[in-house]
């Protein structure tokens, strides 16, 4: 089975910023993304956990995006713009995928 080189971008971002991030990713031509819930974490600003929280303020979420190497740069840039003034971690990994055509399109068929 032939696999194709791709990039996996993972963005850990404050929950209240999620909408803004995904909008920017959509605009930057993201083929799609998946949001995972986050339970707890720790960093320079100390530890936190979602347990018992009602406010979106005290929490992060994780956005995973698999994309072509060509598009990755623009998407990292878009993520950076949102994350920069905030706390948040953006990392990119090389990966292989089976159906490259899935990642070579803009979301929403636009």
């Amino acid at each position, binding site marked *: 089975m032939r696999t194709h080189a791709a990039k996996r971008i993972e963005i850990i971002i*404050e929950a*209240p*910023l999620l909408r*803004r991030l995904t909008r920017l990713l959509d605009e930057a031509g993201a083929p799609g993304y998946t949001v995972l819930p986050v339970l707890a974490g720790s960093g320079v*600003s*100390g*530890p936190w*956990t*979602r*347990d*018992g*929280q*009602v*406010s*979106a*303020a*005290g929490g992060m979420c994780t956005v995973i995006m698999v994309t072509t190497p060509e598009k990755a740069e623009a998407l990292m840039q878009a993520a950076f713009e949102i994350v920069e*003034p*905030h*706390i948040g971690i953006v990392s990119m990994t090389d990966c292989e995928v089976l159906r490259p055509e899935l990642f070579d399109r803009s979301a929403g068929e636009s």
Partner: protein
Amino acid sequence: MEFFALAGQNLLSPIVLSFVLGFAAALARSDLTIPEAVAKGLSIYLLFAIGIKGGVGVAESGLSPLVISSLVAGFVLSAAFPFLAFALLRVLSRLSVTDAAAVAGHYGSISIVTFVAMTSVLDGQGVPFEGHMVAVAAVMEAPAILSALFIASTRGAGRKISGELLHEVMLNSSIVLLVGSFIIGWVTGPAGLERIEAFVVSPFQGVLCLFLLDMGLLAGRGIRESRGTLSGGLVIFGCVMPLVGGAIGLGTGWLLGLSTGGIALLTTLCASASYIAVPAAMRVALPEANPSVYLTLSLGITFPFNLTAGLAIYFALARMIGG
């Protein structure tokens, strides 16, 4: 005399004791937690129930000019308080402009669970209150956020207020749920309430206990994890600002001509600080502000202060002034 009886009675109510239990459990590092989904579910229930009851109250008593004047007063107070809080913070603490503005926004806005706890005190004492105070609570949620951002921006901090942010702030879930269920209660009136009374009225106090257990856990955890975040001046601010805000609320309530119960509620709204809607907005709009400061202050100092001491004080004052 009577005040101390009341304060003691409040301290030993299931509601306050549930909070204390959560607080103690968190300080003792117990692994007791309420799942996030359950905490949100409890909060939705409380907002929905209090909204319905408020609306039914208005349906029963009818609209009066007092409703309008209370709403306007709530709006103005919420917008004005951040300036007062900011000034006080500059005196009492060494917070940066951004941090001080962020904190100030929290104290202009309101804590709905503190409001609900006061309705529970009033119910316990058999003191009625105006149903439309729920709408006043909703109106007071957002203006303070804008004032806080204004304060920050006039001093070179913060980003400009985008339409998106305004939209988020004004249609945040608590406001929508409070206003929506208020309208539902208003439209359906006592007849509608009767059909859902066994859900929105009877178990209310008990659900509030569980929610306060959760609040205690959050407050205790906040205090435990933020040793050193809060200076002595900030702790003083966290107890003085409610009293100052409360006093202004008390006077306003009296000027408006609210009933004793209504005065107590307006006082409580003015004395309370947000810990749900405002922190989320500040994360977006004032990312440079330190969340531990405003969250710990609002949830770890002011909320417990209001719950354990404030409610009794505000109620006693309201009864003195309101007759």
